[in-house]
């Protein structure tokens, strides 16, 4: 029964940053797939009229909406840069340098995440 759950086996046998990045890639992938359908549904409010669309968009223009959008950004940039790392490893024969590439991806993600705080949270003064 347990052997069916490869993640759990791997987790207990081989705890490493590579496995953690693999799991996070899967988790962000599922979250972003769910968001895709939510996004299509939200944009679909246009079918009910202009006011419905504006209302749906305004519903996210508060602290709760900003937090959700920022979490979305974090999921997107992690999935994107970790994915680009995997593509680079696949196509440019960089499998042996995967760990180094992962750290480069983490630094880029941290930089974008920090800089984006000022864009996603208008209450933070930009001249700190």
């Amino acid at each position, binding site marked *: 029964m347990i052997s*069916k*759950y*490869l*993640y759990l086996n791997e987790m207990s046998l081989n705890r490493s940053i590579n496995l953690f990045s693999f799991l996070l890639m*899967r988790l962000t*992938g*599922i979250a*972003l*797939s769910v968001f*895709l*359908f939510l996004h*299509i549904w939200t*944009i*679909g409010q*246009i*079918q009910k009229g*202009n006011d419905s*669309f*504006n209302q749906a*968009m*305004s519903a*996210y*223009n508060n602290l709760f909406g900003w937090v959700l*959008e920022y979490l979305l*950004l974090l999921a*997107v940039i992690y999935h*994107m840069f970790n*994915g*680009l790392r995997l*593509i680079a490893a*696949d*196509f440019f024969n960089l499998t042996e340098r995967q760990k180094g590439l992962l750290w480069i991806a983490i630094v880029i993600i941290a930089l974008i995440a920090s800089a984006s705080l000022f*864009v*996603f949270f*208008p209450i933070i003064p930009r001249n700190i």
Partner: protein
Amino acid sequence: MKVSSQAFNWLMQRITALIIAAGLIVHFVVLHFLIERPVTIHKVAERLNSFGWVLFDSILLLAVVYHALYGCYNIVNDFRPSERVKGFMVVLLWVLGLTAAIVGIANLLPFTKQM
């Protein structure tokens, strides 16, 4: 036949990833950095008045739908499902994918008629 189909999907997953990476950067910059919040119908319609932007959004949508659903299929496959579950997943993902693509593109059209 099965192997070549898997190889095709593997390659498509990488190609759509690159399209999405480039497209999402543009999407985020335009909708989060350049447009002042809240996003309104007029701000979106102004952009979608151009055929180029409608084409851009449509290509991005199709790439995202393919990438997301094939990714979900891969995740399910990690758990070694039976052939029956796999078959069910293929049908379910095709239905979800076609619905998302059709509804998503249909959602773009009302914006083009605003200006």
